[in-house]
């Protein structure tokens, strides 16, 4: 047993050492990020693959959606060609890590600005408004959060919906999935009474999927969605902010809305409920 103890101790030491190394590497100093991007000739942007109409992959395998539309414009203005952007597909829960580990330059995966996230990444000015919503089957519609007591609520890991319900309604049982597609499939399979997510997503989804209604259309505070850069990457952050201001002058975010979101929402929502132009809430 003595030998076993020694092996155990050695393993523990290795794990802790690895952990400490990982902790250190995050504090590495940033090289000029804009220079690097220009040198590489492309900007790496983290987007969703399964959150239509914001970020998704279409039948041809191309990235599409509201976030993607704006990201392409960024690439065009930064590098002169809207195709000089490499889209990296991310999950909700891994968005911060992708930035921290330098796998992407910019996150445009419908990233809601929250205080917890602000500690880990730097948010640029917002381009979209969002609140939470709850969608449920028409037969047993949830119109108030109190109806969820004792029932299972489906959420996506790493989303604001998860944090909100964990904090404010600890007695509602959460069923947590990694991907939007999985979460919505679980709702369709009746594994939970309802699904909570960004209301902007739910409106679009409920329109596509008959038999489901967004019973609770706005919950919690009104939040904003913004591009995010690695903590301390001030150069890229300033560039994005200036870019958003410039785009605001030509009402570009509205153009992105008309191209990507309007078909999904129809006339049920007006553009100004969702869009923030010029990086500032009017």
């Amino acid at each position, binding site marked *: 047993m003595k030998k*076993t103890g020694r092996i*155990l101790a050695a*393993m*523990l030491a290795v*794990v*802790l050492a*690895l*952990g*400490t190394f*990982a*902790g250190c590497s*995050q504090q590495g100093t940033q090289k000029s990020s804009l220079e690097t991007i220009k040198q590489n000739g492309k900007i790496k942007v983290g987007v969703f693959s399964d959150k239509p109409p914001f970020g998704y992959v279409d039948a041809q395998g191309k990235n599409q959606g509201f976030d993607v539309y704006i990201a392409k414009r960024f690439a065009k203005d930064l590098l002169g060609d809207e195709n000089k952007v490499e889209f990296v597909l991310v999950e*909700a*829960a*891994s968005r*911060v*890590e992708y930035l*921290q580990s330098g796998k992407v330059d910019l996150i445009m995966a419908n990233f809601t600005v929250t205080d*917890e*996230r602000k*500690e*880990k990444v730097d948010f640029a000015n917002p381009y979209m408004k969002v609140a939470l919503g709850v969608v449920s089957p028409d037969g047993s519609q949830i119109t108030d959060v109190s109806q969820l007591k004792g029932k299972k609520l489906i959420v996506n*890991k*790493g*989303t604001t919906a*998860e*944090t909100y319900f*964990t904090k404010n309604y600890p007695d509602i049982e959460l*069923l*947590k*999935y*990694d991907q939007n597609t*999985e979460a919505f*499939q*679980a709702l369709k*399979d*009746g*594994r939970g009474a309802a699904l909570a997510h960004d209301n902007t997503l739910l409106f679009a989804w409920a329109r596509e999927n008959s038999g489901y209604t967004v019973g609770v259309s706005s919950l919690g505070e009104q939040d904003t969605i913004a591009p995010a850069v690695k903590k301390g990457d001030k150069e890229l952050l300033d560039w994005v902010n200036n870019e958003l201001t410039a785009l605001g002058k030509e009402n570009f975010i509205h153009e992105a809305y008309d191209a990507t979101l309007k078909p999904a929402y129809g006339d049920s929502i007006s553009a100004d409920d969702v869009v923030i132009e010029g990086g500032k809430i009017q």
Partner: protein
Amino acid sequence: MNFGFIVQSLPLYWKAAQLTLTISVWAIALSLLVGFLCSLAIYYRVRVLKSIVKVYIEFSRNTPSLIQLFFLYYGLTQIGLKLEAELCAVAGLTFLGGSYMAEAFRSGLEAVGKTQIESGLSIGLSRAQLVRYVIFPQAFSVSMPALEANAIFLMKETSIVSAVALPDLMFVAKDLIGMYYSTTEALTLLVLFYLLLLLPVSLLLSALERKVRYGQFGN
């Protein structure tokens, strides 16, 4: 490293470790059973059954376990069969583990020399006695290391069940990362807890191996 965060998340990991262990125990036990029966079907060349088992083994070993789990959890609902996540997890891992265990058992059974069986018959052992005193002890002795490896493999493979919303160790780590972005702490704890679960099992199985393989190790 934020040690406050680590201490705070310990209860979550502890609960998750229990789920991981529960699923593992069920999956390993059922895999052993399925594998044993399958290996007998092959060893004794049971007609029809043998072919079915062979198809099952190839099918199970050559498809990813995550896909098998997804099929049980999301696929079967399309034909109106809604299984609970826990059941899907155990069934999926058994489906995977059964084939590996079957091959491990088979390797042992087939390693028993023909002369052994003929010698046994010539001293007048009955078929049952032959199995009990000649074939099985030698077969298990050969199979044991492979069975152990499979058991540990299955325990680690439980990390896929987080994909069907079961709060196992992997799930908790990813969840904490997603909510609090304490990647380093969450992942370190994850590795530690898997080690904590797997090392005792590994040692226990080694001890068991010595016992079962007294032919090789001596008493």
